[in-house]
């Protein structure tokens, strides 16, 4: 594969990395910081990447590891940020009801433990197969499925108004 093709493959993933990072950290600037770190690491290790491998999975793995490091650091020095819903909610929505539901969903996502949030987003937003998610997160598939289940059940309760997202995300 020529260098230019390889470069294009990585660039093609940037919008997806940004979308996932945005949903994961909930803040545009911090999401792009994460993407930037991920890309820098990716470029510098591109030579190590197996050219027959899945470049998307590889980049998402880098991002996952970077975010896991950041979360570990944040846990040592807890920091609670208000969720910026205006940063997330689309400007135009058909109706009030849908707006409320999406607002609840954004809060619910933010309130999920980061392990569950990652699985729910990789599956639901990035539409990855369960095996691919297991590879990226370096988890057995059974663990992926149970995190997916717990995360989604919690979101269901949030959307039903049963479980207000009390837990603030630790960023």
């Amino acid at each position, binding site marked *: 594969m020529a260098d230019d093709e390889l470069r294009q493959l990585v660039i093609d993933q940037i919008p997806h990395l940004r*979308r996932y990072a945005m949903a994961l950290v909930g803040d545009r600037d911090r999401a792009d910081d994460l993407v930037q770190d991920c890309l*820098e690491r990716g470029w*510098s290790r591109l030579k190590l990447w197996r050219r027959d491998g899945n470049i998307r999975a590889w980049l998402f793995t880098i991002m996952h590891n970077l975010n896991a490091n950041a979360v570990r650091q944040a846990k040592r020095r807890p920091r609670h940020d208000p969720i910026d819903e205006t940063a997330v909610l689309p400007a135009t929505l058909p109706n009030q009801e849908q707006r409320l539901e*999406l607002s609840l969903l954004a809060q619910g996502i933010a309130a999920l433990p980061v392990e569950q949030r990652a699985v729910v987003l990789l*599956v639901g937003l990035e539409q990855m197969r369960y095996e691919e998610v297991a590879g990226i997160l370096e988890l057995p598939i059974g663990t992926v499925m149970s995190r997916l*289940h717990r995360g989604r059940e919690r979101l269901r309760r949030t959307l039903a108004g049963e479980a207000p997202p009390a837990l603030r995300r630790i960023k």
Partner: protein
Amino acid sequence: MTAGPPIDRDALHALADGQLDPAEAETLRAALADRPEARSVADYRRINAGLHALYDATLDQPIPDRLLRGPQAWWRHRRWARAASLAAAGLALVIVGAAGGWYARDSMVRVRQEQTAMVRPAAVAHRVYVAEVRHPVEVTADQEHLVRWLSNRLKKQIKAPVLESAGFRLMGGRLLPGETGQAAQFMYENLQGRRLTLYIRNDVRGARETAFRFGQDEGGVNVFYWIEGPMGYAITGQMAREELLPIAKLVYEQLEG
């Protein structure tokens, strides 16, 4: 609603996510027809749709420049690295040969003086601050402000060399105590996260002026330095001498050129 054999939890998610093959999906849909689990599947789908409604806008937004800067810089760096690797062998021999000549003529005393005056303080400052994740520099690379500030404190017009052609970007700098005066450190980083420092002090004593020299401290940090009156300059990195040399040359040319 009918009660029946429990339906596999994972299969409900797989159905919602379209990860069952068509035959399995058909069978499961039929089995779910009048079962409460059907609601779970519908809710999971609603959650997925909601995620797209919330976050898909990002896909259509233009990619910020800073995210594309990486590839461009990396690409430039690769081109540079290829050219440099061809040139490096020959160049390194010439310079190291010259430095070797100096050492042969010089007394060990003088080498030790320079070790104390330049190599060790530069290497120690290097090791202490390159390891910092959160605060590697005291003032970030607002070039003009940084250089003006450090020039004022060192009472000498200094400048921060531009090392982009070698793949290193200025991160910022800090003020450090010298022995009797002040010292400054500029820090640079490349895309791989490797860091270099330029150490400048204004209070060199007990060492005469010297041309461009190579030294190494006990910790294996490599240093190229030169002394000019009371001023000492040292470019320091935890990298092979052959790798550091072309960068040190670049610094020397910009500061002395």
